[in-house]
């Protein structure tokens, strides 16, 4: 069994943000993945989805279901992160007041993805986009 699910996330659409993560969670529940792993993927995916809505010009989340692992790819079409090391620093955020008033933009998202994923990789090119690939081992 091996397949992919793709979800589009629009910039600034905080009404829809979270829907992709909810669908991913339900899919994993139907597949019988353990609750502990579902929670890790749900949290990491939701952080990624919020990041797309907050910071990107639009992007997508791809869930790839493999034999022994699940891969979550979060990719966007820009604007790109100028300093990845700085962006990965806990507490650093460029989010505005609207985002902060929703309880986000505390600069915890990327580090929380690292914490929950079994493997985390981020690449970014200015004006091209950012891509995050997270792997989760299914026990």
């Amino acid at each position, binding site marked *: 069994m091996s397949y992919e699910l793709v979800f589009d996330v629009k910039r600034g659409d*905080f*009404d829809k*943000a*979270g829907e992709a*993560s*909810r669908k991913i*969670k339900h899919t994993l529940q139907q597949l019988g993945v353990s*609750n502990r792993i579902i*929670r890790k993927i*749900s*949290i990491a*995916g*939701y*952080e990624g989805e*919020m990041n797309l809505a907050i910071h990107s010009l639009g992007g997508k989340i791809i869930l790839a279901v493999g034999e022994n692992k699940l891969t979550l790819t979060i990719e966007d079409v820009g604007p790109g992160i100028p300093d990845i090391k700085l962006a990965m620093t806990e507490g650093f955020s460029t989010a505005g007041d609207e985002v902060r008033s*929703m*309880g*986000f*933009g*505390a*600069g*915890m*998202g990327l*580090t*929380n993805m690292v*914490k929950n994923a079994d493997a985390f990789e981020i690449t970014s090119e200015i004006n091209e986009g950012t891509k995050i690939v997270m792997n989760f081992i299914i026990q």
Partner: protein
Amino acid sequence: MKLSQVRELLNAVVLTGENHLDDEVYVGFGCDLMSDVLCYAKEGAVLLTGLSNKQVLNTAEMANMNSIVFVRNKVPNNEILELAREMDILTMTTKLILFECCGILYEHGLKGANLS
């Protein structure tokens, strides 16, 4: 303690998920910063917050929280309450401030999340 006891102690009004009033809860997390809830909250904890937007529900759903108490008299709009029903999560609202809610529940045996 049972969620029905949480409701009584906080003099709260149940908004959705009344069928969960007999469920047990052992841990609480009081916070308006959803980023921190996603980082630190324990699974199965009751979330106490003064925010009432859709992302509070999404956060609770993704982090497998037990229930949500909206403090300072906050009540989400109907669309958000409909989503809560769809998620089958117990939500309630209280006039008390976050500090008082946490104090009362702690005094009656509810524990906080350990950040270790």
